[in-house]
């Protein structure tokens, strides 16, 4: 949907939300950080691996996934995407701007929808640029061991990587609409995605459940040799689980926005 085909009111609110996003510094900082951290760390790890490839065992070489390796920076880079999602929403509440926003747009569903129509495409574009950049730079550094974009499953993984980053940011948007406070949202989302989720995914006792967590499920889409991950779902199904999480978070966020006093 483009601005010209939208109903007038929606188009106007989208324009307003776009002005909001582009007129604060945190937008540039968080999105740039997502790109730089992901690409930078991915490149560093690819460079190190490339130089130690000769020392790898046969099994390591057999399951070597150069595409997945180039996405190594995403675990950290996604935190900046989450920060963007949190700030886009929590800034409304922490500054009290939400009262002006809702006084101008009393239809709260429209308000949330337009916020998504602005942040969604924005994080998708940044996610795609990040994903393609980290892939091509990583593969270039891996040299002969690198994968090509036309190899089976690779394009899916790279496009999936971009989608993954966008969905994680929108998930954070939804969660922050529930929590409202930037402090609370950061305190829950950051440790969760940085530590807790991956710990739960490694410990045997929690592994079975943890593999359905948003990031654990979503990252599978970036793997070209999915067998190594040993999951009961494929790459697209994994991404679909993340889509489910994001939709649920946004729906819950909408209900909270609708019901509670601003």
């Amino acid at each position: 949907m483009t601005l010209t085909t939208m109903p007038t009111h929606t188009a106007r609110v989208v324009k307003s939300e776009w002005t909001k996003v582009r007129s604060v510094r945190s937008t540039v900082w968080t999105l740039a950080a997502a790109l730089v951290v992901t690409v930078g760390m991915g490149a560093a790890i690819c460079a190190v691996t490339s130089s130690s490839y000769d020392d790898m065992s046969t099994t390591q070489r057999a399951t070597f996934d150069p595409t997945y390796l180039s996405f190594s920076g995403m675990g950290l880079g996604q935190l900046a995407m989450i920060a963007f999602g949190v700030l886009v929403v929590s800034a409304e509440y922490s500054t009290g701007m939400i009262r002006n926003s809702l006084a101008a747009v009393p239809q709260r569903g429209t308000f949330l929808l337009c916020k998504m129509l602005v942040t969604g495409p924005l994080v998708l574009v940044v996610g795609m640029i990040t994903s393609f950049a980290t892939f091509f730079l990583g593969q270039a550094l891996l040299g002969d061991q690198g994968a090509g974009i036309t190899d089976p499953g690779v394009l899916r993984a790279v496009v999936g990587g971009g989608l993954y980053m966008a969905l994680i940011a929108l998930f954070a948007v939804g969660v922050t609409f529930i929590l409202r406070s930037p402090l609370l949202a950061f305190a829950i989302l950051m440790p969760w995605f940085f530590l807790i989720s991956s710990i739960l995914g490694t410990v045997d006792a929690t592994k079975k459940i943890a593999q359905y967590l948003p990031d654990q499920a979503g990252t599978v889409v970036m793997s070209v040799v999915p067998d190594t991950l040993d999951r009961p779902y494929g790459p697209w199904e994994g991404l679909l689980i993340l889509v489910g999480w994001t939709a649920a978070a946004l729906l819950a966020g909408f209900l909270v926005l609708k019901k509670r006093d601003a």
Partner: protein
Amino acid sequence: MIELRELTKRYGEKTAVDGLTFSVRPGVVTGFLGPNGAGKSTTMRLMIGLDSPTHGDVRIDGEHYDRMREPLHSIGALLEAKGVHGGRTAYNHLLCMAQSNGIPERRVGEVLEMVGLQDVARKRPKGFSLGMGQRLGIAGALLGDPRILMFDEPVNGLDPEGIHWIRTLMQHLAREGRTVFVSSHLMSEMAQTAQHLIVIGQGRLLADTSMNQFIAENSRTYVRLRTPEPERARDVLLEAGHRPVTAEDGSLEVEGARAATLGELAAERRLVLHELSEQRASLEEAFMRLTAGSVEYHAHDLPEGSAGGPGEAASGEPGEAASGEPGAAGAPAPAWGENWRKGQGR
């Protein structure tokens, strides 16, 4: 025109707004007066749909706020909490509000000029003074050139020049036929700005009257007499048909008489006077007395409630309970504004 009908808002046990029914009419500045915590801000938030009422409703020109498509064209509000992102320039702050309601961008420049912020349009409000923040809020309220304007404590933090500016602005807006609704906890402020007055206390409507009527009813005058012979003075005054009241400090207060008459009477009866002065109770005192009533009511209620258990007493408002004078209502005619003065002197 804003119409409230039995508007009620409860937060758990606490009733912030209690069955308010009144209308705010166009063409005059309507003052919305009440002590801090009376429910003024909550009422205003309910008016523009930020909070949803527990009971009753508000209509803006006959419509519910959340049914309005682009409400900034009809009603502009300055709320107490400023609600501006400190990192977004004044210009962009107004621009995003304007865009959401299809207001042309040139209007942003116009309102910035109106409030005198044109020079800081590209600055971030983080560094704004309280007064500048207030002006930015007012610019936001004026954006859609609305017929109804609502200001919550607009003079807070303004310097004398700013206060004068906003008074003039509000009166100007009302003269243009707009509905202007402005809250304050200062009677003196309202007396200079508002033509109509709505007073609330503890969420309840205490008065809905024109300012002139309020002044006529409440600016009571009396004469204070101080004499070394209070007993004889009383008799003399009573004989002459006056009704003296002994004040706490021993002086006598006579209502409905002129100082000259009483002076002549005293001279005639060779009564020594140390003071003879006309006193005028200020509107502020009248307001305090009006709202103190609602406080007193609760102060009397409290012991009954606390009989149920100590926990209930603790949940009451200790500040208000302490300021009430138990039995004061029953005591013979306390001096003017005495109750609230005691409360203040604590």
